[in-house]
C-alpha cells in the first residue's frame, strides 16, 4: 500500500517548492506578528474609545448641570413663595396641621391601631384637597404665580414632614415639605431612567441635600426678581468644587485638579448657557435640555458615530492576523504549493507519460495514490508544524499571553489554516486523480481553489470583522461560495465553540475527496 521508492522520488521532485513556500510563509507571518506587536495598532482604537468615553462623561456632566440649574430655580421660586405663604397664611397652615392631627387621632380611636404610611398619605391628601377647596381663592390672590397642583403635592409633603417631625413650624415646615417633594421627584425620575433601587435612592438623597444647600446660598443672595445668573454661577461653582475635591482625594496635584475642575466648569457653563438660550427662543424645557446636553457623539451624524464607535471596538489584531493573514495572505502560498504538487502527483505524470515508469514496475495503482497522498499530508503537516512554531515564537517575542492574541488562539489559527489546506489538498488531489490532462486538473482543481480564495477576499468586505463604515453587506454573499468560511477566526477570538463543527466539515471535505481520488484512480483508463 505504500511505496518507499515512489515517496522518495516525489520528495526529490518537490522539496524545493516546499522549502520556498514554507520559508516565505513563515517570514510573512513573523513580520506580521512582530511588527504589529511593536506598532501598537490598538492605540488608535484606545484613543477612539477614549473619545467616546469622554463624550459619555460630557453628556452626563451637562445633564447634571442643567438638572442642578433647574433645581436651583425651582428652589429659589419655592423659597420666595414659602416666605410669603408662611407670613400671610400661617394661621391657615396651623389649622390644616391640627386638622390633620385630629384626623389621625380619630382614625386611631376608630380602628384601634396607628395608621400605616399609605393611610397617612391618604388622609393628608384628603385634608389638602379640602384645604384647597376652602382657601383656593385666597391663595390665588396672594400668590398668583403658584401652580395649584404643585402646591397640593407640596402641602401633602408638608403634612407628612409634620408627621415625621412635630417640632417644625412655619417656613421651616413648609421648606421641609419642599425637600420631600424634591426627593420624590428625583427618585421617580431615576426609576424612570432605569436605574436600580439603590442608585435611585442615593440620587434622591443627593438631590434633597443639594436643595438644602441651595437654600443656604439663597439666604446669602437675598430676594431677587430673577435668579438665572445666580443659578448659573452657583451650579458652575459647585461643579468646580465637587470635581476639584474629588481629584485631590484621588491623589491629583493642586494644579491638575484645578485644570480638570475648570474644564468641567466650562462644560457646565456651556450647557446652562445653551439651555437658557433655547428657552429664550421659546423652546420647551424638555427640548432645550436635549439641545443643551448634546456631546460630540450627538453632534456627528448617527451613522458616522456608530461607525466610529465600532472602529473603537474593533480588534485590529484579530482582523489582521486572523481574518487577513491566516484566512487569506498566509493561505495563498500553501495553496499554490498544493495546486502545483497535487497536479504533479498524478495528472501531471499521467499527462506527460512518466507515470508509465512507476506502473510498469510491480507497484499497484492503489499504492501509487496512497503514497502520493501520504506525501501531500506529510508536506502539509511539516509545513504547518514549522509555521506553527514560528507563529508561537513570534507571539512569545511580542509578549506571550499579554499580546492581543494569546497562545491558544494562535494555535487554533494554525490548526484551522492546516485543516483548510487539508480540504483544498484533498480537492486538488481528487481532480488530479480524475483527470488525465494537466490542463483540466489544474483549471478545475486549482481554478476553484483560487476562486474560493478570491471569494474570501471579496467576502471580507461584507463580513462583520470589517467596521460598518467600510462594510458592504452584499459582499457577504461571496463568503457562501468559499469553504474558507468554515475556518471561523471570529468564533475562535470570541471564544465560542462554533468553530469546532466547522473544523469538522473541513476535515470531512478533505477525507472524502482524498478517498474519491484514490478509488477513481484505481478504475480509470490511463493513456500511458
Amino acid at each position, binding site marked *: 500500500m505504500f511505496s518507499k521508492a515512489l515517496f522518495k522520488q516525489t520528495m*526529490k521532485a518537490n522539496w524545493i517548492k516546499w522549502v520556498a513556500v514554507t520559508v516565505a510563509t513563515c517570514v510573512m507571518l513573523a513580520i506580521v506578528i512582530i511588527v504589529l506587536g511593536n506598532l501598537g495598532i490598538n492605540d488608535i482604537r484606545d484613543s477612539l474609545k477614549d473619545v467616546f468615553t469622554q463624550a459619555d462623561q460630557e453628556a452626563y456632566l451637562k445633564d447634571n448641570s442643567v438638572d442642578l440649574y433647574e433645581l436651583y430655580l425651582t428652589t429659589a421660586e419655592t423659597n420666595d413663595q414659602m416666605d410669603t405663604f408662611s407670613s400671610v397664611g400661617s394661621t391657615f397652615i396651623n389649622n390644616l396641621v391640627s386638622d390633620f392631627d385630629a384626623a389621625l387621632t380619630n382614625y386611631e380611636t376608630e380602628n384601634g391601631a396607628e395608621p400605616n404610611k399609605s393611610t397617612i398619605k391618604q388622609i393628608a391628601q384628603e385634608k389638602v384637597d379640602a384645604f384647597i377647596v376652602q382657601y383656593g381663592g385666597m391663595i390665588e390672590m396672594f400668590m398668583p404665580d403658584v401652580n395649584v397642583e404643585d402646591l397640593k403635592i407640596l402641602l401633602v409633603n408638608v403634612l407628612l414632614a409634620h408627621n415625621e417631625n412635630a417640632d417644625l413650624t412655619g417656613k421651616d415646615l413648609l421648606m421641609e415639605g419642599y425637600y420631600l417633594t424634591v426627593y420624590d421627584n428625583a427618585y421617580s425620575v431615576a426609576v424612570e431612567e432605569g436605574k436600580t433601587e439603590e442608585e435611585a435612592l442615593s440620587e434622591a438623597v443627593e438631590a434633597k441635600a443639594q436643595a438644602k444647600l441651595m437654600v443656604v446660598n439663597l439666604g446669602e443672595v437675598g430676594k431677587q426678581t430673577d435668579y438665572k445668573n445666580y443659578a448659573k454661577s452657583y451650579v458652575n461653582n459647585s461643579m468646580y468644587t465637587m470635581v476639584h475635591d474629588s481629584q485631590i482625594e484621588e491623589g491629583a496635584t493642586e494644579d491638575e485638579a484645578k485644570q480638570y475642575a475648570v474644564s468641567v466648569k466650562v462644560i457646565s457653563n456651556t450647557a446652562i448657557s445653551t439651555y437658557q438660550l433655547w428657552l429664550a427662543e421659546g423652546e420647551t424645557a424638555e427640548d432645550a435640555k436635549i439641545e443643551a446636553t448634546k456631546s460630540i457623539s450627538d453632534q456627528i451624524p448617527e451613522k458616522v458615530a456608530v461607525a466610529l464607535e465600532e472602529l473603537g471596538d474593533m480588534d485590529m489584531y484579530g482582523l489582521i492576523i486572523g481574518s487577513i493573514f491566516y484566512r487569506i495572505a498566509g493561505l495563498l502560498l500553501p495553496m499554490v504549493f498544493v495546486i502545483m504538487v497535487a497536479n504533479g502527483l498524478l495528472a501531471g505524470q499521467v499527462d506527460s507519460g512518466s507515470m508509465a515508469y512507476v506502473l510498469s514496475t510491480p507497484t499497484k*495503482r492503489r499504492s501509487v495514490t496512497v503514497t502520493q497522498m501520504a506525501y501531500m499530508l506529510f508536506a502539509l503537516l511539516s509545513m504547518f508544524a514549522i509555521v506553527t512554531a514560528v507563529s508561537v515564537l513570534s507571539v512569545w517575542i511580542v509578549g506571550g499571553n499579554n499580546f492581543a492574541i494569546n497562545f491558544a488562539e494562535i494555535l487554533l489559527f494554525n490548526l484551522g489554516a492546516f485543516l483548510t489546506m487539508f480540504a483544498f489538498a484533498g480537492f486538488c488531489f481528487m481532480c488530479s486523480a480524475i483527470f488525465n490532462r494537466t490542463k483540466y486538473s489544474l483549471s478545475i482543481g486549482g481554478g476553484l481553489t483560487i476562486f474560493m480564495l478570491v471569494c474570501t477576499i471579496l467576502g471580507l468586505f461584507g463580513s462583520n470583522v470589517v467596521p460598518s463604515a467600510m462594510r458592504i453587506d452584499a459582499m457577504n454573499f461571496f463568503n457562501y461560495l468559499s469553504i474558507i468560511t468554515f475556518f471561523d477566526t471570529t468564533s475562535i477570538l470570541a471564544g465560542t465553540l462554533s468553530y469546532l463543527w466547522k473544523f469538522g466539515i473541513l476535515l470531512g471535505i478533505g477525507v472524502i475527496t482524498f478517498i474519491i481520488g484514490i478509488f477513481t484512480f484505481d478504475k480509470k483508463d490511463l493513456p500511458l
Partner: protein
Amino acid sequence: MEEEIIEVKDLTKDYGEGKGIFDISFSVKKGETFGFVGTNGSGKTTTIRHIMGFLKSRSGIVKVLGMDAWNDSCEIKKFVEYIPGEIAFPDLRDGITFLKNQAELLGLKNMDKADYLIKRLQLDPSANLKRMSKGMKQKTAIVAALMADKDILILDEPSTGLDPLMRETFLNLILEEKKAGRTILMSSQMFDELELTCDRVALIFNGRIVDIADINSLKNSDVKYYKIEFTNNLDFEKFKKLKYDITRIQEKYNQVTIKILDKDINKLFKDLKKFEVKFISEVKHNLEKYFKEVLSKYKEGKNV
C-alpha cells in the same frame, strides 16, 4: 515453445467515430518475438496499453502468463519490462537518479546489467534528464526497461530517435534478449527491423489486425519475383502474351515484373531464350512488399 505467454482474444475498445481497436486476437508463445506494424493511430499502442493493464477492455480477453491483464496487473509486472511509446521521465535531476529510483521501484539490487547496457548504448547517464536529446532519452528508457532481466519484454516503438548505428546496436541487443529465451512483443513503423528480429509480425490497420505474417515462411517462400527488361518493344509485347503472372508493367522501359514458383523457373528460362533480354534480376519480396499487397487487397475487399 508452445506455452502461450501473451494471449489476446477478441479485444475491443471502441472510442467512437471508428476509432479504437476491434476484435484484436493474437497470441505470443514463449521465447517468440512478435511484432506489430501499422500506421500512426492504427491501434498498436492501444493494444499494448491493454496488455500493460493501463486500459480496461470493453470486451475480449487479455491474458499474460494466464493472468488477467487488468485485474492482476501488478502481479504481471513482476515478469514484464516495458518501454513506453512516449518518453517522459519523472521530475528527477539526472539519468543516474532516475535509473537508481527505477531500480528501487523494481526491487532490483544488481546493477550489472544496467552498466552493461549503458556501455553498449554509449549512454552518459549523468546528464540532466530535462536536457537530454530524444535519442539519449530513448537510450535511458531502454536501459531502465532491460536492466531488470525479466522474461517478457513489451516495447512500444523502442527504436525511435536512435541514429542508424545505434539502431543496429539496439537491434543486436534485442537479438541477444531473444537468444536468452525471452518473449518479446514489439511495435514499430520500420518493417526492416521487425523483419530482422521478429518471428511473426501482425499488420494493424484502422484498429483491426489485417494479417499476421510468419517471417520464416516469408523468407523461405518458394514464390519469387523477377524483373525483366527487353531490348525491344516487340519482344516485350510478345512476352506479355505468355501466361505468366505479371505483377507490374513499365511500358516506358519495356519492363515486366513476374511472380513465379521455384518449380517453374526452368520453363521461364526456356521461354526467355526466344527473346532479347537486356537484364533479369530478382526482386526481393520483403515484409514491406508483402504487407502492401495484403493491404491493397484488404482495402479492395473492404472498399475503403
